[in-house]
């Protein structure tokens, strides 16, 4: 079973993603902010990470930087999912090494498609 880590501080959004990915046969892990995500990553090696950007304590950009420094997580695909939709933010996100950048509000169908694509 493929593993997915969802990092977002909005519980109502997380809830929809969790439901959808579980239905698509993913093992789902949830973190409310970057710090929690990094904690989880110490014990888990997910195939995909869905990462919000504007979060308390450690934001998405910083979290990605930490992830990219960790060699064990090299294979891990990272998708930004953020309300920030400015080109500069998207560029920054991709430059930091994200595999995809999706903006909020999103279509769950497309998010699943993107994840499947990346894992194919």
């Amino acid at each position, binding site marked *: 079973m493929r593993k997915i880590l969802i990092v977002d501080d909005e519980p109502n959004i997380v809830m929809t993603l969790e439901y959808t990915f579980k239905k698509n046969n993913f093992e789902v892990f949830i973190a409310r902010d970057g710090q929690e995500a990094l904690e989880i990553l110490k014990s888990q090696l997910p195939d995909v990470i869905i990462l919000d950007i*504007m979060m308390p304590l450690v934001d998405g950009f910083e979290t990605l930087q930490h992830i990219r420094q960790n060699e064990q997580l090299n294979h891990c695909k990272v998708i930004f999912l953020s309300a920030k939709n400015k080109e500069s933010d998207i560029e920054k996100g991709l430059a930091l090494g994200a595999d995809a950048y999706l903006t909020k509000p999103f279509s769950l169908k497309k998010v699943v498609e993107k994840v499947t694509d990346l894992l194919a």
Partner: protein
Amino acid sequence: MSSLVLIVILGLYLGMLFFIAHWAEKKEGSPMTNNPYVYTLSLAVYCTAWTYYGSIGVAADSGLSYLPIYLGPVIIAPAWIIILRRIIRISRINKISSIADFISLRYGNSRFLGAIVTVICLTGIVPYIGLQLKAIAETFHVVTQTPIRTNIFDDNTTYVAIALALFASYYGTRYVDASEKRRGIVTAVALESVLKLVFFVVVGLYVTFGVYNGFDDIYQKAQHLPDFVARNTIGGLPQAMNWGLLCILSMFAIFLLPRQFHVAVVENNRENHLKTAVWLFPLYLLIFNLFVYPIAWGGNILFEGKSVNSDAYSLLIPLHFQNTAMAVLVFLGGFSAAISMIIVSSIGLSNMLTNNVLIPYNLLGNLSGSEQSINSQRIITSRKIGIFCLIILAYLIYRFFGLDYNLVSIGMVAFVIIAQLGPSFFGALFWRRGSRLGAIWGIIMGFVICVYTLLLPYAMGTTNTNAHFINEGLWGFSLLKPFQLFGLDYLQPVSHALFWSLFFNFITYFAVSVSFKGNYRERNYAEMFVDINRYSTNHENAFIWKGTAYKNDIEKVLVRFMGEERTRRAMNIFNVKYNVDQKQELADARLVKFAENLLTGYIGTASARILIASVVKEEKITLPEVLKILEESKENIIINKKLTETSRELQELTAKLKEANDSLIQKDQQKDEFLDTVTHEIRTPITAIRAASEILIEDEEIPEELRKQFLQNIISESDRLNRLIDKVLDLEKFETGKQEIHLAAHPIMETIEKAVEPLQQLISNKNIAVHLEGKATLMAWYDEDRIFQVVTNLVSNAIKFSPDENGLIVIAVHEKPDAIEVQVRDNGKGIAKGDFETIFDKFYQSTNQNFKKPIGSGLGLAICKQIIEMHKGQIWAANSSTGGACLHFTLPKKEQL
């Protein structure tokens, strides 16, 4: 008192001065020795033994005539701020160490002029030093009541003179660079100035109140003496002219006497010390003169009919009453006055002698070839010997020529001789056209007149063999009578000599300067002297010089006098100051001037020029060329000044623009951040709503429980969206003034309770304790809905920033004279000091928040501020004493009209 005891006392006294000088030398630069008071007191070297004893003699014998000598300096002192400051500046920049240097530099490093000035000074001052020694010797014999021995080797005072000469030559030559400051000497002189004043005042008090019953008593008794009235009135116009001329004489003296130039200019550490000197020095003179009259007339009354030397009244009166201790004090005061004059004068003269005569005329041998240590040693030794010889010479003059005239008249002769430097000296400061030839001939002319009208008749008077010359004039021409030259018969000899010598001196200086233009160097220095303020920071630039010179050659010359280390340091300073490449081989005009300056302190201006000229190839520049360059540089300076001004204005403008731009950028950033926040805040609920709806519409197998949950989420996210929109609109309403408020009296505690109530859930979630403090009866004047909003906002913030454990929020209400003040305190981390004002800005998000994503919208406090201001209250932030944040707002108690 026996001679031996007095000699021991003198020895101790000299030892103390020696110690003070030594101590001050070590403390160089400390505020103890380097302050305006020491400076001013050192100026009081002006008051010599002549002042100390002679004034009393004059006052006793001829009444008020002693006054002009003090009036002159008092009158001119305020002008020091301008004139003396300028002299100091010129001297500091050019490393001038004597008045001979000053004059010779201004007139084109003239060697001859420097020598003439030195000769003039020696002629005037050496007998004057003799006069001081005479005062010491005579008073010594008065106090010990011994006769003066005819064999000088038997006379104790001879050994006092030798001791003084040794002291002066040791302490006056600590440095080769004559322009260096000698803190030791200056401090000792300042101390002596204090002592002589104190002792003089003490004896004055003693005579006035001890011997007599105050000033009135002396006056009452004195007015019965014959001549009292005649001696105490100014006798018509001629007498007034005498007075006036004497005032002018002393004004000149205070600038030109070598010792005054030395303490006032060479030893000046800070120009600002002048500010104290201009009032303190006249005050000093005033206090000194306070008791001259009582002592003089007290003596006249006491010794009426007896033939005693009135100069010694201040000693004779205490001795008359067997008060030996008082007499010794007076003697020490007079001794102080004499030795400070002797030491400072002899140092100054000896510097002049070596730097302006011996070295430039190669009398010390060829200095240019030798090693630095040998050169320095030779210069110092020559100065030492110079000081010693000058003092001994002065003593011999006193012993063999007797100096029979009383103290004042010899001093006056010295003043008149020195005054001959006046026209070329002041001309140097203010007149560009003054030339070397004019100065030379002016001084010579004035000096010749001096000799004819003063020195010659006085010299003859002492031997008294040729009264014919004085009474009938040279070769019997009555117009050439030395005391009534050209028939001018109503002036006293001193004023008479001063008048004619200065008259011819000035006319000659002026006429020759106008008729024969000076060379380019004179013109160059004229410009620098007259316009010193313009050149004070980079005077090397103002120096005009053309030719070829190698840096190496110049450095070699410097090394010979300053040594390797100092030369290297000086060259570094030069390179940095003018941004010159160290590797550059050729020297320019600035370096030539810089090197000449450095050498000036060691060997005088004229020699410096000669020495540098010997290693460089100078090309002749014509006067018109110099004038052209000067004109251009003047224009350049004006243009530069304008440019500097413009660039300063531009800089200011740039700074302002930058500031404006920065604040715009900041606003812009804040606006961006705000928009980001609002966008995020709006998109987030929409995202949740959209995602939930997508599941609901696509997924038919969704469990009932989850379906309900998603629907519930849609509702709450919609509410959230709505609240946000309300807030933005609220703010917009307040900002545009569309919001209406309905004011009425309300119990404030009740409103607060109502506002806190809906937040109870949040409060208990975080386990926060909330305290309300305040009387329930307090009423304030406000719109309840709006203040409800404010309290909600502040308390929400406090909840947000409270720590996760042991959170505490205190809401306190106080009654102030005309307002009700509400405080909301938490025990969180507090607000950064710089943020007290800015947190009320519309787009502000505290940088201190631990959250990168702002929880609030950044609008809450901005809205609160709008609301409170609409109530004519105030809202501000502070930190409570325990460190948490504390927000205060006030509301009026009554309706505001």
